């Protein structure tokens, strides 16, 4: 087990460096270069040169690359070209909002999804199963921002149950009201996905020999599902929830924009509008690092709940 943990942690390092390399290449896709893109075609050569020097774009590409990797690995993600604050500072300010949203959505998505998936599996080929499968399919087809806008329209504009815009507040009740719609939006999309995986995982397990044996020994259906099937059916779900994190973060960016919530989404949108390339580059690294960390942790948890993994490798 310890050996597996160490190997898995070491594997994250080349992944991280490859990811940084990709971001480095991506940023250099800008036609012309970042300096021209930021200042426009009509900027004077002197100002362009000054900006290039500041961004390090006047150095040979190899030097730029090594400096980039070194800076990123030592936690220096650069400064916003607009606010002058470091990327990490900017991220740290809004990160709690995004994490709060992601956590609430994960809670809703996992609980509802697993529940719906189990019901569908137990009532296979009956109406609860059909209903849950149709709902899942519709849920999976919604782009996150479309469902967000429709929810906003229904609950905030037509029914007026909840605020249209979330604004800063110190009142915990208001705070929850602000969180409710965005979290529901992300949570329900995730529910669709998790319900699907849970259903097929449950059906796989229910077909196993040991379940048939338990049934033959007279274990009642409820005990069968809760004590015998669920435990094993949930193992793949750990991985799926972890892998879904990347999608969740992507969806949360747009959801935050629709609900005008502070968070990483607003930060990205601002950077896009002001052509703040250092900020975009830094945010990209932050997002990808998050996903790599979560994937690594997911693998480790998976090994913990399923001993076969660490033994097999």
């Amino acid at each position, binding site marked *: 087990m310890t050996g597996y943990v160490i190997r898995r942690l070491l594997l994250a390092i*080349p*992944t991280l460096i*490859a*990811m940084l390399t*990709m*971001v480095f290449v*991506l*940023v250099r*896709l*800008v*036609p012309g270069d970042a300096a021209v893109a930021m200042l426009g075609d009509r900027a004077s050569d002197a100002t362009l040169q000054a900006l290039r020097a500041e961004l390090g774009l006047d150095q040979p590409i190899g030097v730029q690359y090594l400096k980039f990797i070194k800076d990123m690995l030592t936690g220096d993600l650069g400064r916003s070209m607009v606010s002058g604050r470091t990327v990490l500072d900017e991220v740290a300010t809004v990160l709690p909002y995004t994490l709060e949203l992601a956590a609430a959505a994960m809670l809703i998505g996992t609980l509802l999804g697993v529940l719906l998936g189990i019901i569908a599996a137990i009532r296979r080929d009956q109406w609860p199963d059909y209903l849950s499968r149709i709902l899942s*399919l*519709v849920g*999976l*087809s*919604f*782009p*996150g*921002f*479309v469902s967000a*806008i*429709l929810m*906003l*329209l229904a609950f905030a*504009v037509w029914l007026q149950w909840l605020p*249209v815009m979330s604004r800063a507040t110190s009142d915990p009740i208001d705070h929850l009201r602000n969180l409710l719609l965005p979290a529901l939006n992300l949570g329900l999309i995730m529910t669709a996905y998790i319900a699907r995986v849970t259903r*097929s995982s449950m*059906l*796989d397990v229910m077909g196993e020999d040991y379940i048939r044996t338990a049934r033959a020994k007279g274990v009642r259906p409820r005990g069968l599902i809760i004590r015998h099937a669920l435990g094993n059916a949930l193992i793949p779900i750990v991985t799926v929830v972890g892998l879904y994190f*990347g*999608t969740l*973060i*992507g*969806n949360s*960016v*747009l959801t935050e*924009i*629709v609900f005008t919530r502070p968070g990483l989404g607003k930060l*990205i*949108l601002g950077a*896009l*509008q002001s052509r703040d390339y250092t900020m*975009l580059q830094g945010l*990209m690294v932050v*997002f*990808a690092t998050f*996903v*790599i960390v979560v*994937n690594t942790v997911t693998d480790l948890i998976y090994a913990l709940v399923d001993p076969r993994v660490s033994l097999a490798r």
Partner: protein
Amino acid sequence: MTDAAVSQVAPRRQPSPVFTAFRRNRFSWIGIGLLAVIILLAVFAPLVAPYDPLKQNILHRLSPPSAQYWLGTDSYGRDVLSRLLYGARISLSIGFLSVLIAMLVGSALGILAGYIGGVFDQIVMGIVDVMLSFPTLLLGLMVAAMLGASFENLIIAIAITETAPFARVARAPTIAMKRRDFVEAGRSLGFSPFRIMGVHILPNILSDIVVVASLWMASAIRTEASLAFIGLGVLPPTATWGGMIREGFENILNAWWLVVFPSLAILLTVLALNILGDALRDAIDPKARSAQ
């Protein structure tokens, strides 16, 4: 001693997965029917659309749905229905072309990696894993932001986000195929590696790739709409579904039709592709079928 000898060893080609899917699953007809209607409407948009999608009519701005304007008008007085029909062309063609590129590049990489193996395989799959660790939407956003938004750049941006899954899907069955007798036979007959990969391996893994393609086209259309919504779409005044929602969002308090109809258009298109992809997958993967 040519192909005939090899084809005797090769497994008999199974009936087309599309055919099997539609015989088995009546639900899939809804998907294909819906998709056919959307494609026809997009192709014949100039004939079907009641108005010019770009023509402004300030006197009739923000009119709710009526007999004259079935789906209402936007803040410039442009007909929403006509814009939706023309917008379908953008969504469908970006979706189709980006997936086509991703499919060609991705499966070529996957087949090469699986067939050659060794260090090449490790490098390619390493890159693929890193690409998969980026959230699709954010990767697309980053590439589109760097290249600048245009029809061609959006296709490239979305294709980049979707190449990696195709490489994964193509690689695994290639490795399995490589050890099969008919490939061994081809190799001992002195066929070139490209001939083996193209003529003997590709047709046998094509069905897996097609399933992935229909599911990723759904994703591509979602990504395109999302990028357009945050301002990285084909530039206005061209009508795109995501762009229409972006403009309509400013008037969400008094003109619901500006966001609801484009939303439904995106939802129905993605839904149709997902139903189709699911049906195809069930037809191909016996395990998934037994679990369904």
